[in-house]
């Protein structure tokens, strides 16, 4: 694999806070890499170090094989889309998109042509003469994207680009960004705290926690084989059962089936007796929250959201019901205990 950028032993601290600690990361060329993790885990800091807005306290960053650790942002040729869009309020949409081209002394005709081509790419050519204030949030976002792409950057950096959009637009922009990435062949680094967004958009996911990388891999790999409890938890695994051999089993709530005690089918896999604490009707499924004990005798909470095959008004269980929770072998993920 060719890497478009590489972090080697990169640390960034603010006083006592270590925002990013000993980060080693390769960004593969032509691929979309997401940095995924909860708020405050160091995603923005990582992106801003790559863009040159922050100089790492230690370590090196290379871009296209050349050391860029201390290079100022204007010398990196990267396209960055900020969470706040950061459009130039005093310039028209076209002049926003043409800003970087003007600095590169692209002649006026050619510039106009490139500006329109990039606005076309995001479907906003008809708004070229508006000021940013006259655009909706989603449109401003697209202008910011066109502005960043117009300079033919070696990497496109997106910091939570979708978090300020409403839910429907957000889902639409996911495939839009994917399409643009496919058409341009750009290397993209995207920061998000939304696991669904990361799963849907990434070629490679980098899951971070407290300034450290927890797991790197293709979405399907990370989703089906989370490396540790943190990653599993972040990706929506909710049932964690310690085993007597020291390992930890985890099952997604949608894979845990609940039957009344004594009526459970006999399947190979996991079978745990539990007491229902709460059952919430949600139409296609219901959330059953149970109390059980794992193999070490520690009390745990189990959550099941098994989808029903038929429409029913039956809420399923009542608090206090004795039940059995089950999962099949291929629905169980075994984590090593030390994390």
């Amino acid at each position, binding site marked *: 694999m060719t890497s478009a950028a590489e972090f080697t032993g990169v640390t960034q601290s603010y006083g006592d806070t270590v925002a990013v600690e000993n980060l080693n990361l390769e960004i593969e060329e032509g691929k979309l890499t997401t940095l995924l993790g909860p708020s405050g885990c160091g995603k923005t800091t990582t992106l801003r170090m790559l863009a040159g807005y922050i100089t790492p306290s230690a370590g090196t960053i290379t871009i296209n094989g050349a050391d860029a650790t201390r290079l100022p942002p204007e010398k990196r040729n990267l396209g960055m889309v900020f969470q706040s869009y950061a459009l*130039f*309020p005093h310039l028209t949409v076209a002049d926003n998109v043409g800003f970087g081209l003007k600095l590169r002394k692209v002649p006026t005709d050619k510039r106009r042509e490139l500006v329109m081509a990039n606005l076309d790419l995001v479907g906003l050519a008809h708004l070229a003469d508006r000021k940013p204030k006259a655009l909706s949030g989603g449109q401003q976002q697209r202008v910011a994207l066109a502005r960043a792409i117009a300079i033919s950057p070696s990497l496109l950096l997106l910091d939570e680009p979708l978090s300020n959009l409403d839910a429907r637009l957000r889902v639409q922009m996911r495939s839009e960004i994917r399409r643009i990435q496919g058409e341009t062949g750009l290397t993209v680094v995207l920061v998000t705290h939304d696991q669904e967004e990361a799963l849907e958009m990434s070629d490679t996911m980098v899951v971070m926690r407290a300034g450290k990388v927890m797991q790197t891999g293709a979405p399907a790999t990370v989703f089906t084989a989370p490396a540790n409890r943190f990653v599993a938890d972040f990706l929506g695994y909710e049932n964690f059962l310690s085993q007597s051999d020291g390992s930890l089993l985890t099952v997604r709530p949608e894979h845990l089936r609940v039957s009344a005690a004594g009526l459970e089918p006999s399947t190979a896999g996991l079978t745990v007796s539990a007491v229902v604490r709460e059952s919430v009707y949600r139409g296609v499924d219901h959330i059953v929250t149970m109390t059980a004990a794992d193999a070490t005798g520690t009390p745990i909470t189990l959550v099941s959201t098994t989808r029903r095959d038929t429409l029913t008004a039956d809420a399923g269980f009542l608090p206090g019901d004795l039940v059995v929770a089950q999962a099949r072998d291929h629905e169980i993920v075994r984590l090593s205990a030390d994390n």
Partner: protein
Amino acid sequence: MKGRPILGTLAVLGYVIMIVPILFVVSTAFTAGDALTFPPQGVSLRWFGEALAYQPFVGALLSSLQLAVVSTALALLLGVPVTLAIQRGKIPGKSLVEGLFLSPLVVPELVVGLALYQQIMIGLHQTSFVALLVGHTVLLLPYAVRVTGASLALADPAVEEAARGLGASPLRTFFSVTLPLLRPGIFSAGLLSFVTSFNNVPLSLLLQSRQFRTLPVTMLDYVQQSYDPMIAAMSTLILAGTVVIAIVAEKTLGFAKIFGGINK
């Protein structure tokens, strides 16, 4: 005001106390008679003509305008970079620097004036214009720093970062992004500075000379010798100029924005 009778009464009282003397001055300026009395006798523009023909007033008006324009320009030239350094720079002891530039607000002007008199006029043998220019510039700096600072604080730093990312050097970023973003703030700081300089008495009184005397000082002088409607006419003209400036400011920016900058 409803349900707050005391506050309401105080507000009305405040306006009355402010406006009644102004109305008195303005109306006497239009008198046709010779004395500064109320009510005015008849209506004419006679005293406006006399005020504008009175050489000391005209000369002083030009001096005041010259001083206000140049000191405002200097205060902005110094104040804007200082604001940027305070808010965007990575300098240690930012609050100390900020305090230094805001201190003219609390140091009595008479003290500043005396110091400048001794140092610049006596010590360095400079003209009173130079001394006044230094004095007024120092006096205006807090306004320049505060008002432009308030408008910079409202600007998203990411906009400047975006310019850098697109290939603009720090200097280029300043001229093509930061300065346009700050333009409304600089404009209001300029207006405020201009008015402050134009109306200043203490510094101008201390540092005046026969060659250079500002309008408020000249008018003060005049009142001590003669008391006629010409002074009311001149005051009314100044008031009209101030009102025009205020309207321009309100139309372009809104008062809340301008004065919000100072109280922040």
